[in-house]
């Protein structure tokens, strides 16, 4: 019996600590009840409660959860009437209960983060037609759902063009975490950018690890956390001759930074989603640039507009034009990127915006 008791204690403490991992500063799915919802609505009749349902990975994942919540807090700083809160999802099974709990709480708007939550949002929106929803990384699935998507193939295109212009070996590499559209859209853009450079310049820069015409192929780490694997994949691409690597794999991509560091400056990395010099500062000297995804900005704009009473409807698609994707500053490489290449990049960007260059990635939001 003693044994059983101890197992229970260990198990319980493990669960408590696991829960600590996701900072229970705000309501969790289980603690939200009808009573709590009632008090929230009565006590803050003027306030605009913006509730966020995060995907797995936690609020500080240095990726889309963090960027999304940053947008919410930015809006709340500018407009004190906005009361931000979030709940984390520990697995995909939490999506529906979390959304339902937020509906019961009486939130002014509910922002769901992550394309995987699409079906759960659609169901919740259909069941609660008067509740406003927004979803990051998915298209609108109902009149009361505002979809926010990002055509990161456009940013990736610029990254590919830049890489092709900067490589000394004539080979550049890219690899992803999983072969899923939010990842491969970056790789498509990168691939196309290199091909465009080859076409206009008559060069033959090769892309290792991805070929847009073979969507089932490509190099993937099958993990977004395994930095050691990310390092060996990046090393393999360098061994095959690449001197610029573009990992699209969240934390696992940090392994590329380690390869660049040990190469002593021969290898450069293009970071993804956020400006690498801010999110992974230790490798900043090796980041040529970053292909960004403007989640923070678009969430901020949505919440600010919604708090003023005008709920945006339909879809937002982040593009080069509206700053929803693009290239981060060159930071340490600012002096090393030739001025002609910079002006060419500006031209390419203008051509993508004007439609002169068409991007063919099958993963683009429609």
């Amino acid at each position, binding site marked *: 019996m*003693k044994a059983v008791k101890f197992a229970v204690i260990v198990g319980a403490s*493990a669960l408590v600590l696991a829960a600590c991992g996701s900072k229970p500063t705000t309501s969790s799915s289980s603690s939200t009840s009808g009573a709590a919802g009632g008090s929230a609505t009565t006590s803050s009749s003027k306030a605009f409660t913006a509730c966020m349902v995060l995907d797995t990975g936690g609020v500080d994942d240095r990726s889309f959860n963090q960027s999304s919540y940053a947008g919410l807090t930015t809006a709340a700083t500018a407009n004190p009437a906005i009361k931000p809160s979030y709940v984390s999802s520990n697995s995909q099974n939490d999506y529906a209960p979390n959304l339902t709990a937020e509906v019961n709480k009486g939130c002014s708007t509910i922002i769901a983060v992550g394309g995987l939550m699409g079906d759960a949002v659609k169901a919740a929106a259909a069941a609660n037609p008067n509740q406003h929803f927004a979803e990051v990384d998915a298209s609108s699935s109902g009149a009361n759902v505002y979809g926010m998507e990002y055509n990161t193939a456009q940013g990736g295109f610029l990254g590919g063009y830049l890489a092709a212009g900067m490589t000394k070996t004539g080979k550049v*590499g890219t690899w992803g975490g999983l072969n899923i559209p939010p990842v491969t859209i970056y790789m498509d853009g990168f691939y196309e950018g290199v091909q465009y450079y080859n076409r206009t310049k008559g060069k033959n820069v090769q892309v290792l690890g991805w070929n847009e015409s073979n969507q089932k192929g490509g190099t993937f780490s099958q993990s977004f956390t395994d930095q050691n694997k990310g390092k060996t994949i990046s*090393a393999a691409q360098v*061994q095959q001759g690449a001197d610029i690597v573009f990992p699209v794999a969240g934390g696992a991509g940090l392994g590329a930074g380690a390869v660049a560091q040990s190469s002593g400056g021969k290898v450069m990395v293009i970071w993804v989603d956020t400006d690498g010099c801010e999110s992974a500062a230790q490798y900043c000297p090796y980041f040529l640039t970053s292909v960004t995804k403007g989640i923070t900005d678009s969430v901020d704009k949505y919440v600010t507009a919604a708090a003023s009473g005008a709920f945006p409807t339909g879809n937002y698609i982040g593009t080069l034009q509206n700053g929803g994707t693009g290239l981060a500053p060159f930071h340490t490489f600012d002096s090393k990127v030739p001025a002609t290449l910079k002006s060419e990049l500006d031209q390419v960007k203008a051509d993508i915006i004007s439609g002169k260059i068409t991007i063919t990635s099958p993963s683009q939001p429609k």
Partner: protein
Amino acid sequence: MSTAATTRPGDEVVIHRVVEKPMSTRRRVGIGVAISVLGLLSLLLGHNAQAHDARFDLSQGSEFFHVPDLVLPVAATAYVIGIILLAVGAYQAVRGFRPRGLRIAGTGIGALFMLAFLSWAASGGKGSTIDLLGVLENTLALAAPLILGALAGVLCERSGVINVAIEGQMLAGAWAGAMFGTLMGRFGGVLTALVAGALMGWLLAVFAIRYLVNQVVLGVVLNALSLGLTGFIYDAIMQPNANTMNTPQVFQPLQIPVLSKLPLVGPLIFDQNIIVYLMYALVILIQWGLFHSRWGLRTRAVGEHPKAADTVGINVLRVRYVNVILGGAIAGLGGAFMTLGSVGSFTKGITSGNGFIALAALIFGRWSPKGAVAASLLFGFAYELQTLLSLVAPPVAIPSYFLAMLPYLATIFAVAGLVGKVRAPGADGEPYVKE
């Protein structure tokens, strides 16, 4: 199958000799057919090859003896290997190798088939060279945490305690290595990683040995504990102060003069960082110690038949405590390899299931240190092959999801064909209670 213990005069070491029944005809022919199928596949690869040559770079980084690139005529290589494999397969089907011979032959067959396969793969892309040294170095980097994790498992399970918590012990080591490696220097990091792993091992030991908790359930719980604890500390301390808490210096390779200049083996064995050298030492030490030292004999006795060990005066519980805690420390070193020997920062769940693969390598390696090393290397190679095949663009495009299955396919093939029946230590997972 019976286990005979024989004592040689003047030698107090006991040697286990496994007497195996002669292989059944069906199994013998089956294995022969499987080898022949590989031979036929090689012939097919030779037929399908596009370019004439496959280029292997053998000597990147070694200036001492420069070995020219190995250029193999693909079709001829694959045909020759195919014919050899067919011949070996026929011999196996008709006469049959002995178990030991089969294992050696199996390794050779695997290597030959890999050569044919890689030649074929390299013949597809224009001008793609396979950097053989790079492939082996990446294999080692991927296998190192698995080897250390599997050694941890060997120590625990040989003494009769199932260690499902390797993942958690590695994670604790990776965390401690990164955080204390930043605060106290990287040697301090390694030391604290050993301590952190040992502490996780101690928890396992106390609950498994003293409180007789079901060891598999306990292991799962300890993994959750480690994930939650390190994740919490990462969120609360390391991430907000990344520059002062999460930027350990990574160990750079230490070249051993002269030896490191040997082609291929030089850089692989004599140009590694200190954690890998430690790993080599541990593999040799544990392999020797387990079968040739007093500690090893006691460990195996306690793991096979604790009651008998107790009657001859061995303190069963103490042997188990010591082994489990030592095992935890070694798993912690495996975690430190990730943050101090490879990348240089900790992130949540950085071990990403490597501890569980290590557990598989332990079983696949038949609970022996050298078997575990071989299995870990095979897993590491399968991961590397997955990357390599996606990069060199073989003549036939292979979907990435199929490549992702490679490590597991390799396991199934090797377990079914080479390893045969595996047997865990007799008292593995059974708590010992003195009557």
